[in-house]
């Protein structure tokens, strides 16, 4: 006869409520690990899919994700000349937050090196890759933009020609893909008045110097477009990605490029390492701490509930002892209830998680090893939680029946 099951049936309401409570707590524990895993996956989504073997960034920085990196766009031409480099593409990435349909719209603007890179590697669920050099974009579904929708950014409007899924930055913002030129235009967009003031300032600076007096043509150039001034730098890019040609060792190619004094080179693995162990390390530790606290709270709640259930049964346990019941039978009664509570809570966490997690603002990715890990933790805390009740039950004297 299974006394644990009979007792649970008798106290079904309380047991069910406790199970729901434990289930919700375990769901949060599961969700936390899912958020962490999702965060890693999000952080690596570009690195894993863009198809770059090497990341060339500003010297001494850990860019372009972990920190800002600025490189001249023409670096890609220099890189193409390196033996073993199959292709080199500029990479532009920055965050913008704009107002859209009356709501804040935060996105990671990602530049694709048109025409070599049209975004064919992006996981599309609707539409197509970029089809022209300007005014088109691919938006992640998490941004809420629909196919054909136009979005005004800076002085231009961009049409959503493709919708992707699961393409988000390490910060959880959906990625919008543009051509590099458009991404730079969005990044370095200045109001007309600011441009006019800048041009006037240039003319004033030239007038104040001999060269402005000697060569009046310079004043005319200074009052014109920035792109027309060879002395002014072109917009910078965040990094240049390199694909190594077949038959060449990426480490050797990286060593060649790393010898240049103005750049730092990372392989795909070391870029991933920078993201996982540098950028999201604090988040990982924070989530880990939350999970540990939630597990402790779950254990305490389970222990208290099982202790209360044991207190309710003091008289019955005394009677069982009076009848000669072995300690294993009484401990088994409490332990089975604890394990059942944990198992049902785990099942509920799993079931509810499947419904709730897709509605989380950040991606929650549950791996089978997370489920197995949580199952082990739940077994351990169930056993731990039952100890208080078992301890109490072992101390009950049979003559308590008479009281």
């Amino acid at each position, binding site marked *: *006869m299974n006394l644990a099951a009979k007792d649970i049936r008798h106290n079904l309401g309380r047991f069910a409520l406790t199970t729901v409570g434990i289930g919700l707590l375990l769901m949060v524990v599961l969700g936390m690990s899912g958020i962490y895993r999702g965060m890693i996956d999000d952080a690596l989504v570009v690195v894993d899919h863009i198809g770059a073997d090497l990341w060339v960034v500003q010297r001494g920085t850990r860019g372009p994700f972990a920190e800002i990196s600025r490189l001249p766009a023409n670096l890609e031409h220099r890189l193409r000349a390196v033996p073993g480099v199959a292709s080199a593409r500029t990479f532009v990435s920055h965050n913008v937050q704009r107002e859209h349909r009356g709501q804040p719209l935060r996105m990671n603007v990602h530049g694709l090196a048109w025409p070599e890179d049209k975004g064919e590697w992006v996981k599309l669920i609707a539409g197509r890759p970029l089809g022209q050099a300007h005014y088109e974009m691919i938006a992640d579904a998490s941004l809420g933009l629909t196919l054909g929708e136009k979005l005004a950014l800076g002085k231009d409007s961009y049409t959503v020609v493709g919708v992707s899924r699961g393409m988000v930055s390490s910060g959880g913002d959906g990625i919008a893909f543009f051509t590099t030129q458009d991404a730079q235009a969005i990044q370095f967009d200045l109001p007309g008045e600011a441009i006019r003031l800048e041009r006037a300032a240039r003319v004033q600076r030239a007038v104040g110097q001999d060269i402005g007096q000697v060569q009046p043509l310079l004043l005319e150039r200074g009052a014109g477009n920035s792109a027309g001034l060879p002395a002014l730098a072109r917009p910078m890019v965040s990094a240049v990605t390199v694909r190594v040609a077949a038959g060449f060792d990426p480490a050797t190619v990286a060593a060649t490029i790393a010898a240049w004094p103005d750049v730092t080179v990372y392989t795909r693995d070391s870029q991933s390492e920078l993201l996982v162990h540098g950028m999201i390390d604090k988040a990982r530790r924070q989530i880990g701490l939350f999970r540990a606290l939630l597990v402790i709270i779950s254990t305490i709640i389970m222990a208290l509930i099982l202790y209360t259930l044991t207190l309710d049964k003091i008289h019955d346990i005394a009677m069982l002892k009076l009848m000669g019941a072995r300690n294993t039978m009484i401990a088994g009664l409490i332990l089975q209830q604890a394990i059942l509570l944990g198992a049902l809570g785990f099942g509920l966490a799993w079931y509810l998680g499947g419904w709730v997690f897709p509605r989380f603002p950040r991606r929650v990715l549950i791996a089978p090893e997370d489920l197995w890990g949580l199952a082990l933790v739940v077994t351990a805390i169930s056993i731990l939680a039952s100890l208080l009740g078992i301890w109490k039950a072992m101390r009950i004297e049979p*003559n308590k029946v008479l009281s």
Partner: protein
Amino acid sequence: MIADANNSPAVEALGLTKIYGAGNTEVVAMKDVSVRLARGEVVALLGPSGAGKSTFLTAVGLINPPTSGRIVIGGKPVMDGPRALVDLRAFRRRHLGFVFQKANLIPFLNAAENVAVALEINDAAPRAARKRALELLDYLGVAERANNLPDALSGGQQQRVAVARALANEPSLILADEPTAALDSHRGRQVMVLFRKVAHERGSAVIVVTHDHRSLDVFDRTYEMEDGELRPAAADHAP
């Protein structure tokens, strides 16, 4: 029942004394009590509150060891003073049955399960335990309530289930502490008659602590306890 001791008395208490506390707070609850019960004998134990009846009963029931004296059950010495000579819990499981003022049924088990659990504790197989439980409930006239939880049973029915549970392992000795206190006189007498029937038919010795003088004719012998001392009652209704 104890297999190799059929001719020995069911229970023998020799010079039992129980002292609670020490020094100024010392209370002698039971004083040099000796008694011997044959198998199948039904004995009533009378006395005012605080006389030591429950102390005697719990001492003989191996749940409250005496300060001194010896207890022999079915010919086997089990207590020598406060020292246990056997595994008390295992001994209780096999040889003793208890009935109390309250039925003390386990609330989450139905009537049949309350009886069967006593058998399963004594290593009976679940199916055999249920079969035997139903037989006992039938014997005690509550078979039709076998699947009811204690809440759904009347006081008398609960007490019958408790008696069935006490009988489950065919104990040498059944100890009943005011088993009819919560019942009306008619049902109280029914329970007392039941004890007599059980004792005579199954060979268990029964000690019943009672205040109900109207049913004393049911018992083979009547003892009285006062100030911790045991003596035959003045008007012993022994046949």
